[in-house]
Each structure stands twice: as C-alpha cells, then as structure tokens.
C-alpha cells in the first residue's frame, strides 16, 4: 500500500530522480574525465615510458624495467643537472624569502591615512608577478647584454667593475644571472603572502610585548616569526616546487649554457626528450624530478605539521 503510493509520487514528480550523491558524481565527472585524460593518463604514460627504452629513430621500443633509473645513477650529466637545480632552488628560494620578508615588513609599516601608499605598492608589486616568464627572461637578457646592457653600464659608472662582463656566457655568472631574474620575478609573490600573513597578527600582541619590555628585534623573533611560520612554510613549498621545475626562465635566458653550466633537470629532460628523442630515459629523468620535488615538499609539510602541533 505505502509502496504503491511511493512509486506514484515518484511518477508524479515526472523528473529524473537522482540522489544528491548521484548529482555530486555527475558534477564532478567532467573535471574527472578531463583530468584523467589530459593529466593522469599522460602521467601514467610517463611513468610507464620511464620503464622502457624508446628510441623512435632506431625503432627501438622495449621494456627495460629499472634500467633507465640505474643509468641515471651513473649519469654524470644528471648529477650535474641535479646540483644545478638544487643550487638554483636553494639560492633563489632563500633570496626570495628573505627579500619578500623584508618587503612585507616594510610595506606593513606603511601608514599614510587612507592606505594609499599600500595600494600603490600593491600595484607595483603585482607587475613582475603578472609578466610572462618568457618576457621577463627577455627583459633581463637585455639588461645583461655585455656590450650595451644597462647592468654593465651602471656597475661601470658606479666604479664597481672594470667594464665588460658577459653575464650569460660566463659559466660562473650565468646561473646567478638566472637566479637574479627569478628572484625579481617571484619575490612579489612571497611578499604578498607574507604581507597578508603579517596583517593577521593581532596588534595587541605587539602592544603587550612592548609593555613587557621587548625590543623590535625581540618582538620580531618572539611574535612575528612564530606566528608567520605557517605562511613561510607555504611560501617555501610553492616556491620550491616551482624552482625545481624551472624551465622557461633558464631556457630563454641561457638555453642551459654556457656548456651545461645552467642546465637544470627540466632542461636536461627537455633536451633528452625532444633533441635526442630518448623518450624512455627522458621520462625517467622527469620522474626523478617529481620524486625530488615530492620529497622536499613532504619534508616541508612535516615541518609545518610539527610546528602546528607545537603551537597548538
């Protein structure tokens, strides 16, 4: 009896009867299909490729298991690329963090009535972030130009150098030139996040610390830094991920040269994949990169969790 009227109600409503859960899956479906097809499938294919030797030119395509990875271990160029990548990452991320922190602290001190100064600072600071990396690489390539670039001229005019330095062609300078460019481009991002973090620190804490006799440095060390730790770690995670994968900045600026002195893992992988067409070995390189990035960010996350537990 009740069952019949139940089905009647269903019929009467006359629309497709889906539970909320079913609607949910339906809504998530397009995203899932797209990501599976365009991202997950290629990722899987890359992992699979990394277990094969594929050299289309010679018609070679065979399963080799972990041989590519073993080959990596003995590949001097791989280790050099690793060193370059880590050097680039460590230098640029720490510089971005320090500089970004400095910017954020300065901007947090801005106080001219309506906050006009801060608005202007935001406008200026967002520009390097918004510029395409490729464009910023070209901008800096021009600044680094040895004969009539602005940098050499300014340094010479200030009496700091004897004259012409070929920044991008000198194996010692080239990687640092790339770091400077990367720092210029991404410091704003770090500064914006840190500034937003600073704004959330309750002002009463500083007042209380001043009453307790803490100086500026003590306030920074005991209040600002601990409270900002989560944001600092998030900046670290984001920036490290990006720095390890760095491609366009260095690729456009130096192309990996001179020699292989600025060849990061991405560039080595790119060359292996698209210049020597070793799909298997190139994929193994890329996977190694992913592992490196994942291990580092896992480390950061553990740090973050420990920090949250300690302060919570």
């Amino acid at each position: 009896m009740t069952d019949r009227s139940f089905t009647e109600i269903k019929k009467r409503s006359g629309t497709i009867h889906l539970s909320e859960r079913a609607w949910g899956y339906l809504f998530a479906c397009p995203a899932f299909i797209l990501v599976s097809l365009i991202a997950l499938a290629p990722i899987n294919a890359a992992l699979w490729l990394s277990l094969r030797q594929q050299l289309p030119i010679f018609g070679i395509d065979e399963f080799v298991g972990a041989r590519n990875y073993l080959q990596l271990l003995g590949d001097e160029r791989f280790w050099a690329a690793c060193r370059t990548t880590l050097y680039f990452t460590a230098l640029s991320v720490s510089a971005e963090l320090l500089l970004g922190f400095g910017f954020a602290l300065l901007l947090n001190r801005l106080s001219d009535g309506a906050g006009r100064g801060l608005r202007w600072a935001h406008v200026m600071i967002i520009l390097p972030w918004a510029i395409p990396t490729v464009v910023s690489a070209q901008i800096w390539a021009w600044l680094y130009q040895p004969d009539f670039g602005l940098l050499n001229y300014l340094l010479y005019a200030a009496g700091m150098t004897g004259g012409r330095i070929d920044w991008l062609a000198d194996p010692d300078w080239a990687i640092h030139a790339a770091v400077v460019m990367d720092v210029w481009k991404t410091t704003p991002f770090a500064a914006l996040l840190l500034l937003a973090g600073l704004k959330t620190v309750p002002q009463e804490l500083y007042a209380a610390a001043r009453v307790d006799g803490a100086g500026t440095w003590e306030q920074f060390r005991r209040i600002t830094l601990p409270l900002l730790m989560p944001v600092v770690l998030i900046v670290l995670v984001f920036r490290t991920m990006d720095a390890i994968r760095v491609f366009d900045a260095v690729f456009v600026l130096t192309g990996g040269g001179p020699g292989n002195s600025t060849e990061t893992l991405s560039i080595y992988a790119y060359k292996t994949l698209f210049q020597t067409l070793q799909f298997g070995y190139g994929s193994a390189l890329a996977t190694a990169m992913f592992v490196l990035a994942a291990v580092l960010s896992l480390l950061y996350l553990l740090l973050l969790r420990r920090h949250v537990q300690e302060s919570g």
Partner: protein
Amino acid sequence: MRRSDDDQAGSTMMVWIRAHGFTACVLLFVGLFCLGPVLWQAVTSLKPDQDLVRLPPLIPERVTSVHYDRVLLQSSLPRSLANSMVVAASATVTAIVVGAFCAFALARLPIAGKSVILGVALVTSMFPPIAVISPLYLLMREFGLRDTLVAVGLTHAVYSLPLAVWLLTSFFQQLPKELYQAARIDGCTPVQALLTIMLPLARPGLAVAALLVFIYSWNEFMFALTLTASDTTRTAPVAVALFPGLYEIPWGDLAAASLVVTLPVAGLALAFQRHIIAGLTAGSVKG
C-alpha cells in the same frame, strides 16, 4: 601662471613626502625594484636602432615608434596575440565551468572520496609538466589535435583546473549552507540551486579564479611551445621566446614585442589587483 601651478603641485608633493617620508622611501625602493627593468624595456622599445648600441645617455634623445610598427604590422606577433587570446579565453571558460561544477560537488554534495579528489588535484599540479609533455603530445596527435589551439587551450584548462577547483571550493564553502538548503526546499534540483543561487553569489570567487586561470594560460610557455609547431598556432610567449633574429637579436623589436605581450595581463593584474591578491593569499594565510 603655469609655473606657479607646477610649483604648487610640487609643493603639495613636498608636503606629502615630508609627512610620509618613510612611505615615500619604501615606495621608491619597491618601485625601482619592481618597475625598473620594465621601464628600461620601455625606453629600449622607443629608441632608434642606432641609439640602442650606445650608452650613455640613459634618457633617449630621440624617440621612435619604428619598433612597434615593425612588430605590430610586419611580424606574425598580432597573429600570436590573437592565438593567445583565443587559447586563454577558452581555457578560462572551460576551467571555470568544469571547475565550478566539481567545486560545488566537493563543497556541498555528499560524495565520497573528497580528500582523494583534492589529493589527485594536488599531485597533478605537482607533477613536472616536462614529464607529461611527450605522452601528451602523442595523445594530441592521436586526437588529430596536433598543432592546434584546441590542444593548447585544453591542456591549459586541465592544468589550471586544480587551482580553480581549490579556490572555488573554498568560495562555495564560505556561502551559508542554509542558502543551498533553502533552494532545495523551495523546489530546486541541485543544478537549479547551483545556477540560480550558488553561482550568482560566488561571482567574486569566479572572477578571481577566472583571472588567475587567464593569466596562467596567457603566460604558459612549455605546453604552448611543444604542442604548436607553426606561426599560425604559436602563442604570444612562444613568439617572444623564438623571436626571429637573422644575424643578431633585434633588441628594439623584442622590447616592443615584450611590452605588447605583457600589456593585456599587466592591465588585468592592475585593474583587478585587489581580487588577485585576495585569490593568491586565500587559504594560505587562513589555513
């Protein structure tokens, strides 16, 4: 008359600087750091070729539009700009539409495995793009999409989807749960509730997500480089990276091209600076 106006303007500025000396110094420093290289590029783009190879003077004595003429009228850059516009716009629309539905399901509907989905999104965005390039290239060839704008747009949409989903999910979660429930009680299907209630209320979030996706797509280089092969499909960043120079690099043209390519995103970033900062800092500061 005119002089005294200038004086007055000058003196109010002096007053402001004296009142906010610290602010002025900080702004000058930040401005020099952030804008200096770009300004130099602008100066370069206005110098005649023969002046480019001599320094000083820093301030150009003659100004010319020849580089802009060449870049805009004689090169394939306009085509690349149009391509970028098509790619970025379609990537944005795709990512926002697909992302909004997914984010809504994650935020308000009782589906299982939400953390798995968000985790997959995170891994996807962590995986180095270089690793997927070759399988992706083969896949696009399989679909007959090699060297098409569709391939680039679709790839950009998918790789910005994690960001869009994360952002939109948190925006939907900020809307009171009762609004969705009220819509359901009032007779909406979940689709109707999403379209008539949730989306209109999440407009600021949609705008932020759309801006970030657009800027990402406009600036993206590696996918655009490998998935396109000809002048007719090249996007603007690829065009700038592969700027043709027969014997030597045409620095003036390159500077003009750089600025032209930057203009749309810089404009967006400046116009919606507040939204973008809100979007960039969302979550990272609260959580």
